[in-house]
């Protein structure tokens, strides 16, 4: 973690190097230090603050929010990074762990559309509408559809059979690649999971979406994070950006504090919202764990990363309403691997209309594909630039099919790749969806290895995405709070 980092100039096109001491005025000791301000880290910090703990939240980037973030470009363009769409459960989570103003700003998307060689339609993305489509578009018997949704509702985390998602689909809809595509594609974009991942994690995430459709924040990610920062400050949480933590210090099997910018800050607990591998093998160091645990973390597989293309319409330009979320592919059939196609035959378009940011009369479109680190990491600078240009060009061509003439209205184009995600988040291999399922147990049991150490990063697919990340922050904050309470009892 100590090697020199490369920074771009200025804060608009990279991470600005800090000229002032980012830790100025920070106390010598806290009850808990949260490393990383993704939704999991921020929610954990807020819950601990509400519980009356003294909390320091440090973030390496200048923006808070992790991948729930945004950026601005010349010409008045504001781009949201995370795919905007989460289950209704986010409303309850925000009301309970943030505040009712944040919860009330959550609104349902007006439209979700699929368009691929197997099927094309608009949907509300609810169990009711999916059942209707499965019957009328896909021609399935009602009893078969009902059996599928009945099993989905009966999902039990503790009754896992180890079945894969592919086997689960095949059991309910044998040989129906088109149905598998409908059920899998949106979830793959939401959390990076594939047909080979456990049916259990699929069922939990898909079941959450199916309850009432897809929701987003009115006002954009910048407004959301601003509101969350204000709430954290109300709870007395000390917030610091541009802080690169170098070490989580451990003595006698117990966390004693963190090292950053040549300073040691003491604490009784650390909640790491950094990546699982970065936390165990980097910030703490494998030598502080039992060999089995360290080796286990080493062998945890990562989910894929992403490519995104950001397209900003010039001021005064507009497009008619198409849909909010468009899952599109030119591939004749579905495979999970195809979602990582280097040449982007499959992608999601997120359309942002003036309704997203009231008062700012602007249109932007963000295209997202899943992507593999190894496809992008080995390119030379010239190859990399050419690949990014090609990605933008093919994206515009595809978009023209849905919005004819849009290319001439677009003023700003920009591409992000796994290398971009790695640079901004410091996640290994730029993973935008954390670890595969097996990472969950290491994240949940880390406190058994080192007392006072907790992890709330994206792990195990279900603890990823907006709702999973926020709820996991609460689960981990509860464990951390119990540890802090137990320490006080010992002192008393």
């Amino acid at each position: 973690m100590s090697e020199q980092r490369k920074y771009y100039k200025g804060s608009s096109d990279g991470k600005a190097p800090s000229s002032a001491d980012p830790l100025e005025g920070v106390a010598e000791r806290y009850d808990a230090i949260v490393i990383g301000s993704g939704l999991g880290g921020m929610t954990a910090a807020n819950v601990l603050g509400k519980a009356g703990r003294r909390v320091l939240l440090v973030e390496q980037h200048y923006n808070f929010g992790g991948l729930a973030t945004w950026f601005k470009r010349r010409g008045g363009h504001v781009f949201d990074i995370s795919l905007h769409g989460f289950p209704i459960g986010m409303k309850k989570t925000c009301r309970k762990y943030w505040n009712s103003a944040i919860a009330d700003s959550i609104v349902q998307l007006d439209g979700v559309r699929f368009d691929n060689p197997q099927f094309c339609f608009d949907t509300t993305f609810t169990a009711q509408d999916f059942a209707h489509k499965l019957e009328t578009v896909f021609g399935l018997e009602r009893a078969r559809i009902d059996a599928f949704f009945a099993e989905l509702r009966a999902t039990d985390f503790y009754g896992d059979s180890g079945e894969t998602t592919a086997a689960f689909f095949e059991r309910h809809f044998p040989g129906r690649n088109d149905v598998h595509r409908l059920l899998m594609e949106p979830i793959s974009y939401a959390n990076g999971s594939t047909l080979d991942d456990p049916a259990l994690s699929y069922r939990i995430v898909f079941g959450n979406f199916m309850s009432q459709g897809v929701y987003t924040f009115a006002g954009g990610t910048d407004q959301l994070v601003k509101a969350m920062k204000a709430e954290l400050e109300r709870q007395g949480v000390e917030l610091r950006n541009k802080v690169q933590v170098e070490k989580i210090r451990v003595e006698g099997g117990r966390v004693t504090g963190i090292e950053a910018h040549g300073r040691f800050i003491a604490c009784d607990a650390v909640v790491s919202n950094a990546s699982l591998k970065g936390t165990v093998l980097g910030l703490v160091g494998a030598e502080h764990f039992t060999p089995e645990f360290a080796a286990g973390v080493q062998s945890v597989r990562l989910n894929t990363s992403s490519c995104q293309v950001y397209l900003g319409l010039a001021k005064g330009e507009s497009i008619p309403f198409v849909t909010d979320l468009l899952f599109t592919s030119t591939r004749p059939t579905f495979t999970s691997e195809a979602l990582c196609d280097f040449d982007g035959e499959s992608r999601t378009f997120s359309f942002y209309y003036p309704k997203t940011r009231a008062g700012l009369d602007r249109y932007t479109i963000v295209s997202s594909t899943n992507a593999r680190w190894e496809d992008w990491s080995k390119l030379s600078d010239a190859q990399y630039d050419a690949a990014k240009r090609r990605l933008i060009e093919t994206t515009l061509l595809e978009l023209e099919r849905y919005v004819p003439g849009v290319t001439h209205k677009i003023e700003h184009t920009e591409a992000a790749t796994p290398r971009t995600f790695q640079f901004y988040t410091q996640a290994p291999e730029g993973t935008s969806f954390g670890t595969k399922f097996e990472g969950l147990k290491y994240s949940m049991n880390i406190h058994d290895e080192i007392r006072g150490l907790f992890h709330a990063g994206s792990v195990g697919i279900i603890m990823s995405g907006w709702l999973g990340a926020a709820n996991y922050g609460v689960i981990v904050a509860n464990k951390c709070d119990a540890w802090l309470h137990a320490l006080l009892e010992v002192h008393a």
Partner: protein
Amino acid sequence: MNREEIILAIKDIITTIAPDEDVGSLKNDVRLREQIELDSMDFLDIVMELRKRYGVQVPEEDYKELATLDGCVAYLSPKLQGKVLKVGV
């Protein structure tokens, strides 16, 4: 706290977690999840509130003891002995 106070304490915590639910008509011997909309995150909130308000620790393996109001009374009685009821916090 006596039996009535413990039930009141739990009902007051539930009111803050699920403000739309009517806790007045809750039966003591029926599972809470069968009477009102409470998910696993809500039970976590009950545990966190018990710690915050009364300093009571409920380890994960004991969460199942809180399934009914009667269960709460049986499990929490020894832990809440000598503690003062706090409502509307």
